[in-house]
């Protein structure tokens, strides 16, 4: 099935991030930032910081003509 057995526990977030590879770049970027922030901050603080990241990514999308 996969190499979960070898990579569990401490590397769990790295494994999750790897699974996000199949998603579009902006979704992946936002998801990774959300996980990274969630490692250190509570939910509300993460949501606040994500607002800025979402705005930045959406602007970039617009700039790329997407």
């Amino acid at each position, binding site marked *: 099935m996969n190499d979960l057995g070898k990579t569990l526990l401490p590397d769990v977030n790295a494994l999750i991030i790897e699974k996000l590879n199949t998603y579009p770049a*902006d979704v992946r970027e936002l*998801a990774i930032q959300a996980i990274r922030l969630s490692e250190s901050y509570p939910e509300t603080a993460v949501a606040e910081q994500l607002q800025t990241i979402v705005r930045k990514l959406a602007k970039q999308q617009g700039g790329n003509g997407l």
Partner: protein
Amino acid sequence: MILHKMIVENFRQFRGRQEIEFWAPSLPHHNVTVVFGENGRGKTGLFRAIMFCLFGERRLSQDGDVPREELLLVNVSALEANTRQPVRTSVELEFTHMGQSYRLRRAILGMPDGKRIIEEEDEKRLFVITSDGNTQTVPSIEIDAVIDSILDRRVKDYFLFDGEKIERLTRASIEQRREISAGIRNLLNVDALETAIRAVGRVSKALEKELSNSSHEELSRLLKHLSDNEEEQTQLRKQLDGLADEMGLARQEVDKTDNELKKFNEIRHLLDKRKLLEQDLKGQEQQADEVLKEMHNLVCKASALIVSSTVITVFEHIERQKQKGEIPSEIRRDLIERILADDKCICGRVVLKDPAAHSHILDWQKRTSDVATQDAALNLWRYLSEVRNHFGDNADLVEKRLQQYGNIRSAIANINRSLENVRNQIGTSERQDATKLDEHRKKLQDSIITLEADARNAQTLLEQLKQEEERLRALLKEERLKVGRNDELSRRSILARDTQDALKGVHDQFTREIKQLIGQSATQFFRKLLDKEGRENLRTIVVNDDYSLQVLDRYKKPFLANISAGQRQIMSISFIAALARTASRGGQIEIPLFMDTPFGRLSFEHRQNLINHIPTFASQWILLATDTEFRRQEANLLKTSGKWGKFFILRPTHDGNTTIEEQDINSALAILRDEEDY
């Protein structure tokens, strides 16, 4: 993690300072320690001391509802001897992990306070011993994080197997599902992912609200519907969980009532008969469901049977025209029309001069149709020919299924009649107490039927919502193509929603994979630990979607209900070993496995397999055993394995305390008894 040594001081039964060495550096491959003692001597107390030292916890999972004030760690006789003076209780643990050595010390002060005894934290210190022999102190604030990185506190309880836990894990009960679910959830360690999902969800909701005030009404409407749909699905899932819990409780109550009823010997045969009939009924109902599902799948094919006579009439009509040469016609209509228009045959003769030939051509003209109509008729003929060929097969299949369904319904009706009859006999039993119990049971069964119906309805509703969700997503995809490119707010909202979906998808995939991985790993252990007979029949351990455990037989059929108490114990040990292996990242289990009286229900072959295999799976095996289960036979097996390093006896003292006494393993054989001695 390998435990080397523990020093306890005034801890529970252990008065004064006492030491236990679990592992000797001179015998690095001897990773088995046996702690031998009667019940109540403090075997579990040693595990408690380790948990206290590592995590500051005094409560073990098996303590259940025992109030905290009753879970004293301080040695009470030391406290009594030391009236009015606090007594220091401490545990010091030396261990290695990933080649690094640690020394951890935790202490509390116990003191009387009126009739109560209070305990206050006194000391917590962790030292790391570097390779050059120097000692570094870990700052107090970092100690918990360091220990958690060595052994996550959320999975710690799995490494003490006691009889109760073993029993609980294999029972088909809510507690079992919760226990396993908690074990796997803790192991997943996806806290950050779950926080991220909720945080992105908040952002998404806020943006949807903002969008609803903008000009993109349709996009906003769709996003809102999707959110509502997801919320409804979440509520329905919760409802289904609640119903499953209620059904589980009702079934447990039925089992309990059955056990009570069995005490009435005069109706025992009726109870057995009822149980068989109920099992049969369940089997028939399952079969009926399966046949209904098959019939549902046949609807598309079988619908043509309704118009079979029309199909055959049309087919035969075209066929007749074909036979007559009208389709396709011998001469093309456009050719005849050209002859009539030119008044000249293809041979050059003038048609009008020959009235018989002219009339013949007019007759041909009537019988022929245009090319497109002919092609359509021929295509229809081919299609109907194909459809017609399957009529026989489909009709047979439908008839067979209908007959099968009818037979099953009739069998169900017969079983229900027999059940009613048996129930009446139980109900009219002279034993009024039995009758009351049976009425109680009947009410429970009725409530299970109602709950099952509620669960089916909720499930159907959930399926409908899922279909609606798919439809909404498709509409959303179209809508976002229209508006998403030019509007930043829409782009933000869509991005947040897509990210939330992506994170949820990863979470689901991850959970599924972990369950599968644990099932596979548990199966490997199970196959090694089972006796020959068990290995022949029992093949796979599965962690179901609802987190219940199941074992499949050689025909891949569920077999948990039929396995023996010993096999259940082996199954639980395999599951916990799989959890431990997964927590140890697939390699050797780097967590010491404590087993409290593990051999109780096991056959000698099972004991033999445990003794031969556990020391190779685990980095350390600490057996807490009584004299009724750890006998000379087991000791001989362990000695032969070459893995047995240490042997301790917990001896009672005159004042009701316990002393830890190390014995040479050779002398252990002299102390232990043979099976015949019992």
